[in-house]
């Protein structure tokens, strides 16, 4: 049986009420049109990742995002997310942001191509409407400009 996160999160936030989870206002579904081997893929991460040279995320309710070059050698990744589980991934961001693994799958022709950029934002933000109506469309526009076929969101 899978580990249950919600009771631990509720305990963590007490005596404040538990976090309210936000589901999309309508189901999102888009058919996969090409095999993975012919698709361009981008990573999305809710870990508030950035390159060391980019502006830090502000804690908690930051609704901005960062464009991260998909080349694994593009620079050191910093995790700005405030979560207490960050100690381990801060040793190696690839375990929540597999930039190198994805590039390796492209080199091995398992994946068609890399998006020029991956994207990251702050997870756990409580402004659900703004995420759905502002942040998500802005990132979707970026993905379209990058001609991405598949976006993989690694939740944090």
């Amino acid at each position, binding site marked *: 049986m899978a580990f249950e996160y919600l009771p631990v999160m509720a305990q963590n936030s007490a005596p404040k009420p538990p976090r309210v*989870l936000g589901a999309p206002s309508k189901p999102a579904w888009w058919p*996969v049109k090409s095999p993975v081997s012919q698709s361009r893929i981008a990573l999305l991460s809710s870990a508030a990742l950035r390159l060391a040279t980019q502006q830090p995320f502000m804690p908690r309710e930051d609704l901005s995002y960062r464009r991260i070059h998909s080349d694994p050698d593009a620079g050191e990744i910093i995790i700005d997310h405030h979560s207490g589980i960050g100690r381990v991934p801060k040793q190696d961001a690839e375990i929540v942001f597999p930039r*190198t693994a994805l590039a390796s799958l492209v080199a091995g022709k398992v994946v068609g191509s890399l998006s020029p950029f991956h994207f990251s934002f702050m997870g756990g933000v409580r402004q659900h409407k703004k995420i759905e109506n502002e942040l998500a469309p802005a990132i979707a526009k970026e993905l379209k400009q990058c001609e991405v076929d598949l976006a*993989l969101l690694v939740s944090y």
Partner: protein
Amino acid sequence: MVIGTAFDIMSRVTPPRAAFVDHPVGRTFGPPHDRQRNETVLARALAELPHFTRSGEICDLGCTWSPDGSRAWEDELRVEMLHDR
């Protein structure tokens, strides 16, 4: 597609396609500095992509954190998650 470790959360927020990895949160693609495992988990998720048929479906990738299947990591994770209360 979402790739995540929290089955209970993914079942509530209904992403269009979700791949469940039974690892501790924050270690979705394995322990630090294990590039082979990073790639194995990612390849498994991508291999499942064509099999999704409806929005909200969650696919279990069959990943286990401990080689012997032990779930002792759950107690350690609870402590870690509550550390910054």
